[in-house]
């Protein structure tokens, strides 16, 4: 079984658009599981018309809580907190800002009257269902909650288990924007990463950062240039960057004004057949031929990864004297 992640450093380059098209192309030939790892704002379930069949609470981090009338006002907790989450109210009692609290628990033992306890919070949901390309797994973090990397890992683990169960040999992952914690969780241990770049100064800058990350994580990467004809100057620069960096540009998708409305129609009505079979816009045509190349790349790549998703690389920090 292979895992392919569609990602980009910059947001809005077309990750979900391409993921949705690839999922439909892939589903014509084989069973697959799609996973949306953008748990902060997941759009793939919309684009693929997911029907949710399972929901599981995703437990969040704990938050410190001050028991009513228990605070003696000693203020020792203030010094123990490194996140400026505690302040003293006018009545002399400590108050925890739950948005700033990271749930580390340093304040609880510091409290002279045992007034502080830690209470669990629900951070989001892990969802599963059926969509027009088959099984789909995604997550929805409640706005403002942390632990997005951990929820991403749960989404990937669930998708992998489901693929094994259903005998699917492909997990197609729509990744989050950026290069931080949720992105690392999305691409660690994957068999391939398709970086979606757009021809702009920002697009090039952010592509470089994503490629450096994928090389650190030893995930093979290829690039697709989306909205390729938006700026001839920026596109040339991006092609040169790929060449310089030894990156394979697997294909280019032209700026296609019809693509987004098509995707929106896909989200609103059941037009799966028409979209992938008969609609023939330049964007869809380009995406299809890129998908064919991606499939042969995946078929050739060795099954070298047994680790599966990992929230972190789990390399111990270098320690003193060792």
């Amino acid at each position: 079984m292979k895992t392919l992640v569609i990602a980009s450093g910059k947001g809005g380059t077309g990750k979900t658009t391409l993921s949705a098209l690839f999922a439909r192309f892939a589903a014509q030939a084989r069973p697959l599981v799609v996973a949306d790892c953008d748990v902060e704002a997941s759009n793939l379930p919309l684009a693929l018309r997911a029907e949710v069949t399972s929901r599981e609470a995703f437990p969040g981090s704990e938050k410190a809580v001050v028991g009513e009338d228990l605070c003696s006002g000693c203020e020792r907790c203030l010094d123990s907190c490194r996140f400026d989450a505690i302040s003293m109210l006018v009545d002399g009692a400590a108050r925890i800002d739950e948005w700033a609290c990271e749930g580390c628990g340093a304040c609880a033992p510091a409290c002279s009257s045992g007034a502080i306890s830690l209470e669990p919070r629900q951070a989001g949901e892990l969802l599963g269902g059926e969509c027009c390309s088959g099984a789909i797994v995604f997550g929805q973090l409640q706005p403002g909650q942390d632990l997005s990397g951990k929820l991403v890992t749960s989404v990937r683990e669930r998708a992998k288990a489901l693929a094994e169960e259903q005998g699917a040999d492909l997990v197609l992952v729509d990744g989050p924007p950026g290069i931080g914690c949720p992105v690392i969780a999305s691409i660690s241990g994957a068999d391939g990463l398709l970086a979606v770049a757009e021809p702009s100064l920002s697009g090039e800058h952010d592509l470089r950062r994503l490629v450096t990350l994928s090389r650190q994580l030893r995930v093979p990467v290829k690039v697709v240039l989306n909205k390729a004809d938006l700026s001839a100057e920026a596109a040339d620069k991006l092609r040169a960057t790929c060449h310089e960096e030894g990156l394979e540009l697997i294909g280019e998708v032209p700026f296609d004004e019809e693509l987004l409305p098509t995707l929106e129609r896909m989200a609103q009505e059941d037009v799966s057949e028409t979209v992938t079979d008969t609609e023939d816009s330049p964007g869809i045509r380009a995406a299809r031929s890129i998908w064919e190349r991606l499939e042969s790349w995946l078929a050739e790549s060795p099954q070298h990864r047994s680790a599966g998703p990992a929230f972190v690389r789990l390399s111990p920090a270098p320690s003193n004297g060792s």
Partner: protein
Amino acid sequence: MVSGDLEKRREKGFTIAVASGKGGTGKTMVATNLALFAARSGASVTLVDCDVEAPNDHLFFQVDARAETVEVPIPEAPAEACPSGCTACRDTCRFGAIRILGGKPTVFSELCHGCGACALACPAGVLAERLVRVGEIESGRESEGLRLVTGRLDIGEVKAPPVIREARRVAEEEAAELTILDAPPGAACSAVATLQGADLVLLVTEPTAFGLHDLELMVELARALGLPAAVVLNREGTGLVDIAGYCDSQSLPLLARIPFDRSVAERYAEGELLIDSHPEGELWFSGLWQAIKSTSALADRETAA
């Protein structure tokens, strides 16, 4: 009380966070153009790039920047096996960042939040902390007087919120009448670190089902944080969704509508600001700036001043 608030606000200046759940809706475009427009109108302005995973504001300005590093404390395992032979540090850590291997703690720094609870818990006092670099902050001024502060997370690091908080702290070192925070996409901890304490959250969206879905999440977040929100509709004319109708139904002020224009996208891709490349760009941002001033407490400040 009220005059005290105003006094405080005058010292602090007015802070706008430009945010969106979905990536690529135009946060950076709005933040950079608005910042320069306000600076040209005579305000002292600091633009803070809080999208520390993919910071792009600096690509649009020539700034002679000064850099400083962002460090977070992480525990440092003792060289020898622990004298106490206990597991207090591991048991205290709520993030699973410490394991006991060979009679002493081993630290997995990617999981560490830098809270210091482990060092406090160590009965033998042998678990020290050291500072580890996770990113950098660049700050400087461009030729028209706009101050730019950029937070940049080191590649491979996971601790974005400390870099965002440090960028905001560096921004506050020099007083500005207006501070614009360019937020990262998303609605989780990095967004919270950017939005907290802002006077206005300006949500940039596009008229598609995806834009609306992610806008709803951000409205929920702004409300949970108790912050006033307003909307900028970008790429009007491209999608099928009625954002203005949504804003009406939610009593959200829709402060600007920027139509889709391929030539705008093209010039922006090449690093030009809309207020310079297109005459109508200046009109849109002048309208947005006026709308912000009249709907926000900035108006109170000016009256009070």
